[in-house]
């Protein structure tokens, strides 16, 4: 049972990383245009170099 003392904090920590990543994505407005983001990966624009902005 002593393994719980490690496993529970570890699982909470890993889940917390996921939660933070999601919060970061929402704050960064990554959910503002889901349709556009899905379509953009099909276009060849800026495939050779990053968008300058």
């Amino acid at each position, binding site marked *: *049972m002593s393994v*719980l003392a490690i496993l*529970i904090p570890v*699982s*909470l920590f890993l*889940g*917390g990383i*996921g*939660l933070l990543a*999601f*919060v970061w994505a*929402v704050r960064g*407005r990554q*959910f*503002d*245009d*889901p*349709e*556009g983001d899905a*379509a*953009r*990966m*099909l*276009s*060849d*624009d800026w495939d050779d170099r990053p968008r300058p*902005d």
Partner: protein
Amino acid sequence: MSGGVAISACPACAAAPLATETARRGAGRGALMGDADSQILLALPGIHCAACISTVERALGTVPGVRAARVNLTLRRATVEAPGLEAAPLVAAVEAAGYEAHELDAATLARSEDTAGRDLLMRLAVAGFAMMNVMLLSVAVWSGASDATRDLFHWISAAIALPTLAFSAQPFFVSAVRVLRVGRLNMDVPISLALLLAAGMSLYETTQHGAHAYFDAALSLTFFLLAGRLLDARMRRAARSAAAELSALEVPRARRVDAAGQEALVAIADLAPGDLIRVRPGDRLAADGVIESGTTDLDRAFLTGESLPVAAGPGDAVHAGEVALSGVVTLRITALGPDTALGRIRDLVARAETARMRYTPLADRAAAIYAPAVHLLAAAAFLGWLWASGDVRLSLNIAVAVLIITCPCALGLAVPAVATAATGRLYRHGLLVKSDTALERLATIDTVIFDKTGTLTDGRPDPVGLDALPARDLGIARALAEASSHPLARALGRAIAARGIAPAELGDLREEPGRGVAGSGGARLGRADWVGATRVDGTATYLGTGHGAPVAIRFSETLRPGAAEAVATLRARGVAVRLCSGDVAAAVAEVAARAGIDDWEAGLDPEAKAARVADLTQAGRQVLMVGDGLNDTAALAAARASISPASALDAARVVSDAVLIGGTLEEIPAALATARSATRRIVENFGVAAAYNAVAIPVALAGLATPLAAALAMSFSSITVSINALRLR
């Protein structure tokens, strides 16, 4: 959305005040691309794919002065950062690339920013994270953890659940406190009570080394209810931003003429009675007034439904909302804003709206029964067990179990899940639903009233019998017609051009406002008395070529695509169809015959239209009004439900429950069918929720409900309801 006063019993309604609140809070945060001053928003209704995005962004990027341009495909909108640039060159650039573009008023749209949705999403994410972790710990407890291990797991659950509840369940607490302050109940009151009691009771049980803790139930309740709220907020946002978009399309300005004769473009609000304004061809009149100089043809279709323009000259009274088609006129303003004919129609609309029977949404009706019933049940369970056992702790535990098990997860999802699916489906078919209860109201419709001009017809006349004329005459007619902006002339020009006949070479083309167009060699196109022809019945223009007798060219109105099919489908389904128009009888009869409507009335003014709707409603009919003009707005507001085409005047679109974008009129019967099946799904969902409760409540009352049973009942009912909603697609 009148945020502050929206106190209602439906859980979904809490999203609206929340939205305004969070919008206020989020307003300070800067936008992604620079400040709003240098931003220009463009509506791009035609874009739909990856190639469209690159084409539009590239086109905008080549305009000098543009720093950055980004297309949002979900909102069909482009944000352009271009300090000091006007929208016109940007619109031109996008149109040159082959896409439709309109400027949007950034200030109007700033209000519809999705801060509320993002806020709810954040709370949902936190609740979801906490729910999963606590559920994992709970599974261990359910499968037999005991003593110290169980206590440890309960303590960890409490440490996760309590802060999460404090953050994620805030929308429910805020809404519950708000209605309790004014002495009312809504769905959020039992929700908040269940959450607080469950958390408090579980914490106490944990300190007492008890076997049952409801942390997982409290969290999953929060999670499912937030999911319903989020769906609801998203739907409202889509509708709201579309409505804002439509009103942002009209930027009202007028050209004021000062004492020195100089023109200046000013906002309508800066005008005063007595000012002179100049109106150019194509302008919509901003105020009521009297013409000082100049003559023009006025298109009154939006005000009166008349399909043909009337001539107006010095001394004639003209009204706000009319469109000048030819000739520049200067008018002295006699009335502005609410005093105008347009303003009086708005009053009529306001009266019609208050007279409209208040519709209580299904969710509110369910909540009105549900909220008191749950409280009574829980109180009865507590008192009953206290009387039977005398054990306060046990009685309170059972009361909490009753509250949690009956808590309306499924009820909270029942309406938003179906409404999201249904409005999404209607939007893909070109019908934008603006009102929350529109679907439910559309489902009850048994009578449809159509307006004629601009609704059943596209408002554009079509010349008939051109084949009888020699090509040489048609060439002259085209040359004359293309010199005018009168709707009959433009229609004639288009029709002849479509036949591939080149315009004749005429010199000295000039338009005489109120009469017609004249060219060299005595060629004239216009009114019968001016051309020298004999008048014929119905809509017609007259062509004098300079040699031979003048001829009449008759016109008929083109039905909108799908008009006849829509009428036929509606009648086949047993829905009564009527045509009510302000136009003259001959024109109405002709259109009614082609659309297949026997029941028509002509020459109705706005009051009469609204009265017709009121009479039918009195007689027990559920009326759907479909109209586009100002003369229809009162009727639109008075009807049980209303639809206007996207080409309709702002005022008409605002009072309508739904706007037909693009799509043909055939979408109307389709929309009624969708609304009916959506309402059936909502009722089914209430049935599902009730059935779960019917099983769960006796178990809880008997004191047999465990946290495991609560978790199962909650998840299953929520999933069943969501799946049932998705069947609509």
